[in-house]
């Protein structure tokens, strides 16, 4: 009786796109940085996602970013994509990406803000979470942790 309907299957595939599944299975930059200059913890109590973000900042540039922890596919993939993206960016630009991504995923009327000079196309893979209010927090967890790490807040951030 439960043949899976193609349309709805399509929606699911929209959330769990190949790129997401790939990054969830094989997260990039998934390790500790011993001489990190910035670090922060991110916790999503709803599903038990817990990650620690590390960043090495030299002058104004994030020369390396990484994370450790465990979580759902969305949160791990998002952290993996993020650490990939922000490596080599200035802190200012990385924070611009943070604002853009959280705006895009949480605000239905979001308009692309001023051009931040970073190609965020890859992160479109996360757009599927917009239809899943309880999952948006998973997708933005790593970004919140990055924000708190580089702006120097020491409390663990929670997306609850």
């Amino acid at each position, binding site marked *: 009786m*439960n043949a899976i309907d193609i349309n709805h299957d399509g929606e699911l*595939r929209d959330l769990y796109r190949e790129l997401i599944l790939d990054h969830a299975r094989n997260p990039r930059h998934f390790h500790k940085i011993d001489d990190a200059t910035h670090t922060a913890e991110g916790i999503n109590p709803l*599903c*038990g996602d817990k990650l620690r973000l590390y960043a090495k900042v030299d002058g104004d540039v994030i020369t390396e970013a990484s994370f450790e922890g465990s979580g*759902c*596919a*969305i949160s791990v993939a998002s952290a993996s994509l993020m650490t990939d993206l922000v490596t080599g960016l200035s802190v200012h630009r990385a924070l611009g990406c943070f604002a853009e991504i959280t705006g895009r995923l949480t605000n239905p009327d979001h308009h692309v803000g001023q051009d931040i000079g970073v190609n965020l196309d890859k992160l479109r893979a996360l757009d599927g979470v917009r239809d899943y209010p*309880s*999952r948006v927090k998973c997708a933005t967890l790593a970004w919140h942790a990055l924000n708190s790490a580089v702006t120097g807040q020491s409390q663990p951030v929670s997306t609850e």
Partner: protein
Amino acid sequence: MSQPQENQLASIADCRRDFPALHQQVHGHPLAFLDSAASAQQPESVIEAVARYQQRDHANVHRGVYTLSHRATEAYEGARDKIRSFINAANRREVILTSGTTESINLVAQSYCRPLLQPGDEILITHMEHHANIVPWQLVCEQTGAVVVAAPINDAGELDIDAFDQLLSERTRLVAVAHVSNALGTVNPVEELISRAQARDIPVLLDGAQGVPHMSVDVRALGCDFYAFSAHKMFGPTGTGVLFGKEALLEDMPPYQGGGDMILEVSFDGTTYNELPYKFEAGTPNISGVIGLGAAIDYLLSVGMDNVAQHETQLLDYMMQQLGDIDGMRLIGTAGSKASVQSFLVDDIHPHDLGTILDHQGVAIRTGHHCAMPVMDYFGVPGTARASVALYNNRGDIDQLVDAIRKAQQIFS
């Protein structure tokens, strides 16, 4: 009436019709609602009882001299009588209406334990408790210098009775145990625990949030000193619950909150408290919720608690067997005696991802730590997926669950 099963189970199959929320499509699939342990759906009769009260009888209780207030008071106090008889309390003074299990337990912690506890005294709980049966004890221990002691569980999710026995000490002032675990489904051997505790004159509180919806509960036969439960897990409204307490204990306890309704006379020289149960019911209560709870009890009685228990036991067996047949399945909570609930993990799919994929196929389950983080720690997992059955579920729901899990495995393969 030795073999009532066949035709009565047929009538249990009809129960599903009584629950409007179950007859809808979710993401293009019929809803398979398997999260009643979090909050159960309400039958038409409960929804109607609440609506009738709101439409015709609403007024404050215990106060007015006019007709509506009489009607509201009658319906509200009538519900208390139904609750008394449903759990077989000796009298209505032993039935305190609260906002739910959580408030019931906090009431006992603050009103019974706090005046009594000395530094070094102990509250004995178990490793499988809901946070609502952990944190209120931690709070009162912080206030008094007492300590919370947790009896261990084994890999099946059963309480280690011998360890429990050894942890009962001269310092134990109260035992607080789940009747049924919400994360594992374990039915604790509460008669045994109560007799061991009471042999040492230690009172026992049972957290019955997951007990009352699934089996008939007789507080006098159990002999427990306190029993706490919530309306919304037994097909009634949210924000309403019950604390049963033995009259002799309740009599000696100071009020929990101050306000209207719980007093006889107030002056600035002092206040005399109302009699039981009103001493513990300060302020305007959740009148419609309590009336809804009364209607939920009528509904359960019309189905018959023994039929409910039998139907659910068969369904839980079927679910455990069907889930167990899935490759990569890890069942968490495999106690010999269980009710309603199965926690599980599949392959290395995170429970939250599984929950989303199942929702897409119309299957509603709970994912996460189920407010029982110590249980998750014991099994070394951040959370689980949890399916729970109630009287309105059937094998079709389980089959839909199993198909949906296989689909998730395909996506993550």
